[in-house]
């Protein structure tokens, strides 16, 4: 009997059974999707104007969201990881709440704040004539609200890990705090920023609940790929299957990219 077999024999059988059940639970739906996709009409759906419109909108808005998440989220992560602001734990909880909030609730909260009669939205409308709901910026805001915490938490742990004497050494060599941040801290945190950005982008691309609540469902303006998929289900299930397949491919590409390069930067996952 080989070593490997004797080792396996020690694993409790109940864990093996349940573990494989979990594997099946994840694999079967994806497999079913692949099996049921009407591949023959693939080119029709992809070149279909409505689908192409939704795909373009989704890619465009999710990329904008990711850029904004980096611009706002990296400083927030720095505040949480390095500064001594009072109530840091509380601020972190507030800023990552939207991650666990039901997306529809996030959308309602955005309407309450930035809607035409919202707390801030009313001021924007009265003073600047800006109405956010049901516009493309609203799509980005909805995505940013639910997706940015992924970047913040990933980058925060990156900042916490890169803290050390290196930054102090840079100061003693004549570097200002800003020079140290851009030339020492940021490069050391780069893997975490990339990992966080990819997670944020994936979450933004799949955003549905907050988007449809706050931004609505206007073709070309706010109808993103997930919304288009949901609508297609009611008219033509084949379309829904094909659009879903497109998103599966995108997700797999992201997962592979993360696994191979940056997975170590995400919260200690190996």
């Amino acid at each position, binding site marked *: 009997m080989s070593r490997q077999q004797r080792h396996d024999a020690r694993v409790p059988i109940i864990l093996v059974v349940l573990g494989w059940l979990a594997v099946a639970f994840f694999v079967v739906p994806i497999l079913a999707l692949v099996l049921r996709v009407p591949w023959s009409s693939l080119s029709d759906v992809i070149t279909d104007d409505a689908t192409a419109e939704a795909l373009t909108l989704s890619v465009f808005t999710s990329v904008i969201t990711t850029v904004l998440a980096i611009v706002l989220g990296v400083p927030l992560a720095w505040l949480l990881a390095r500064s001594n602001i009072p109530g840091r734990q509380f601020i972190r909880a507030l800023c990552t709440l939207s991650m666990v909030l039901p997306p529809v609730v996030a959308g309602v909260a955005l309407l309450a704040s930035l809607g035409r009669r919202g707390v801030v939205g009313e001021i924007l409308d009265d003073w600047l004539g800006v109405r956010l709901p049901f516009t493309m910026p609203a799509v980005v805001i909805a995505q940013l609200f639910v997706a940015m915490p992924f970047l913040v938490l990933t980058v925060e742990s990156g900042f916490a890990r890169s803290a050390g004497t290196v930054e*102090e*050494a840079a*100061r*003693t060599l*004549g570097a*200002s705090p800003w020079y140290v941040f851009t*030339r020492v801290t940021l490069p050391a945190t780069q893997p975490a920023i990339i990992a966080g950005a990819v997670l944020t982008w994936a979450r933004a691309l799949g955003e549905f609940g907050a988007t449809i609540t706050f931004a609505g469902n206007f073709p070309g303006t706010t109808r993103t790929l997930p919304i288009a998929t949901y609508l297609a289900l009611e008219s033509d299930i084949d379309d829904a299957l094909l659009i879903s397949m497109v998103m599966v491919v995108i997700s797999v590409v992201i997962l592979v990219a993360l696994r191979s390069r940056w997975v170590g930067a995400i919260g200690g996952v190996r």
Partner: protein
Amino acid sequence: MSLSIDVRRRIGATQLDVQFSVVAGETVAVVGPNGAGKTSLLRVVAGLISADEGRITWGGVVWDDASSGEFSPPEQRPLAYVFQDYALIEHLTVGDNVAFGLRARGVRRRRARERAQEVLDVVGGRDLLERMPSSLSGGEAQTVAIARALATEPSVMLFDEPFAALDASARAHARRLFSSMSSSSMARLIVTHDAVEALTLADRIVVVESGSVVQIGTPGEVIATPRTHFVAEILGLNPLPGRLRGDELSLGAMSLTVGAHGVGDGDVIAIVRPRSVSLHRERPEGSPRNVWRTTIDAVDRSDGRVRVQLGAPIPIAVEVTPAGFDALATEPDGDVWASVKASEIVVQPA
């Protein structure tokens, strides 16, 4: 010009309270047991933390004055700090690390690179330019850290435990590097828990215990009149007056071979750490030099260590483990063989 330090600062349970100065061109070693507040002292001088009370000035320029609130951040003080862990920037090449201080001061890339190459040449790191810090040995990393510090031509240089993490050959290189610095006009401040390092490198020694200065003096003065138990431990380092010729150290009754050193022929003080000497029941094989037969004059067992006073021809104190001593299975006044590695004997001019 001199660096004047007169500060009080609380760090955790330790109250740092020191007052001394370092003159330009001088090396001062701050010696003390671990936890005495030595690193905190360097951090206050560097401006990484501020003093609770007191002031630090360099040539009359105030760096830190707790009463007036004046405080220059680290980047505005003309100093360089060689950290104990070297603190090299991992994503930059050695060349970019050495050029970092100049780039931060606005020197153009090409000029900074040239200067980095020059400094690396001087400190013996010529071939390291394109290497990444993660590929360096401990000694190479220290060489780079020193080059990086020297590149900005600081007036004050701070070293935290410069030899603690180095092997024997890297130590020899580092010692030569330090002797070559002794002719410069920098004020050099070294902190170390290793008394031998302090005695061999420094012009003056500041002994710090529990955050306070207990003695200041030249190495000779500190050896001659130790003020506290810790300083007395320095005496236990067995200073031996002798004559040096090449690597041959004559101690009157017998001669020892010493390792790499930067000291000229003539009268010297040789220092042997109590733990550097091994005791054997029979003549040890395979190490023909620095072995001698001697007697055990006294034995003192305390704190889990055995301190053995050896007799002629070299009357020194030796420290061994209780197990090692019991293995000798010797009578209190019996004969033993003693040996010491050449590289463990440190010489300095008398």
